[in-house]
């Protein structure tokens, strides 16, 4: 469960990225976050995995009050969610298997626990045949699938995705979306910022539109609602 109560974010250069956000995302929901570039979408997402800290307001995530979090506790919060990025953020010098296993090493899982779990996740994203490949040898879609496997490997209750299909062609984007839908059906909350009109309008889910730092629209089975 994610809840934001009157959240404001002002960057050091004076930009007001968010102005009084109130939102509640229940467990098991699938939410699109849409809006024009520079409207505060990215900030909204970054607050959830605590890459940014709110200037004012409260953010509750899986029982943590992450607006009052101490530096030391940040890793704990990040482990309770899975994050997928537009630029994949894979470790370039580790192969596919190692990249996914890394997230489990971080939580000090045993080798015995790690191996089957990593293989299971790579099976889910259909990359079991590329275990020993390095990120530079993979296509964009494949890299994104590795990053999804990594986000899922510790069975987080929530997946946060920042434009996961932003760098991918339509067909590959749909492959990725099918994976997100699959994990959502298994009970994982999915929050996804996107610019992809086709996806939002086809795979109907809750849509939160952010404009000028405020929530302009919040509707179940909503539309993308912007041109292009």
């Amino acid at each position, binding site marked *: 469960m994610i809840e934001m109560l009157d959240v404001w974010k002002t960057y050091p250069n004076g930009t007001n990225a968010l102005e009084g956000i109130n939102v509640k995302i229940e467990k098991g929901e699938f939410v699109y976050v849409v809006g024009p570039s520079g409207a505060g979408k990215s900030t909204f997402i970054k607050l959830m995995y605590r890459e940014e800290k709110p200037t004012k307001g409260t953010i509750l995530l899986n029982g943590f009050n992450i607006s009052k979090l101490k530096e030391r506790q940040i890793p704990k919060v*990040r482990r309770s969610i899975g994050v997928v990025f537009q630029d994949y953020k894979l470790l370039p010098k580790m192969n596919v298997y190692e990249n996914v296993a890394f*997230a489990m090493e971080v939580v000090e899982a045993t080798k015995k626990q790690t191996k089957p779990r990593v293989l299971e996740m790579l099976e889910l994203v259909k990359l079991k045949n590329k275990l020993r490949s390095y990120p530079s040898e993979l296509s964009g879609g494949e890299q994104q699938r590795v990053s999804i496997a990594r986000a899922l490997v510790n069975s987080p209750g929530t997946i946060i995705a920042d434009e996961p299909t932003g760098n991918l062609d339509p067909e590959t984007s749909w492959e990725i979306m099918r994976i997100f839908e699959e994990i959502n059906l298994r009970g994982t909350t999915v929050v996804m910022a996107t610019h992809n009109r086709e996806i939002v309008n086809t795979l109907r889910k809750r849509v939160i539109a952010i404009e000028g730092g405020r929530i302009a629209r919040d509707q179940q089975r909503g539309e993308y609602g912007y041109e292009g």
Partner: protein
Amino acid sequence: MKVRTMGRHLREGSRNITRNGWMSFASMSSVAITLFILGVFLLLALNVNHIANVVERQVEIRVFVKQGVEKVEVDKLAEKLKDFSQVESVTFIPKEEGLENFKKSFGDKAYWFEGLEKENPLSDEFVVKTKDPVETEMVAERIKNLPYVESVNYAKDMIKKLFTITTMIRNVGIGFIVALAFTAMFLIANTIKLTIVARRREIEIMKLVGATNSFIRWPFFIEGLLMGGLGSVVPILLLLLGYRYLIDLVQVDLNLYFLDLLPLNPLAWQLSVLLMGIGAFIGVWGSMMSVRRFLKV
């Protein structure tokens, strides 16, 4: 931290060295080269210091007692000499012994001086050594004014020059070593910093996946330790082999006979431990300093 996590850090740290092949090689080379230069100067400085010590220790004051002084008075004089706080040792050479030595120095021509025992022209003599050779002159001047002292003899001008030179050599040596050590530190730390800056994205990603700072730091710590330690092996081997060769050379060559080099045995260990320690310390230091900058994500 769990034991297997420590194992993971050790594995990861050493694997990072091969993963970043050329960067690691650059770091280790810069460790090796700077430590080698440092080692050469260290050996040089230690030996110069050793030689200076040997030369200085040969400095002594010869005190000649007036002719015909009673034995009791001579003993009293000996006591007085020993009472100087700066004096380390006093050796008495009675004139009979002095004559023996004198005769011995003529070898088989000693018979020339047969009969001199009856009317020994020599004086009783004390050989005085000071604790710190620098105090020789001051002590000698004071001994001169003691009763029954005929004269004192020490190489006055030579000693002054000797001390000016040895002090200068020591100071220059220390200055060189300190300057070199600092240069080495910055050079190595900088190279290591470059290898880590190239990996700032990796560190950022690790943090986003939920790794704690110490989890990220450990492999870097081990990597720095290994690179510094391994980087010091080659210069240590080169220096020790070179030094041993030099010792052999000096012992065989009569022209270099006067060069009294420090023996290999304690020196080899001291040098190895010191250089390896410096290497490891700088490796870890450079590595930690650089990671620290990127941990704030």
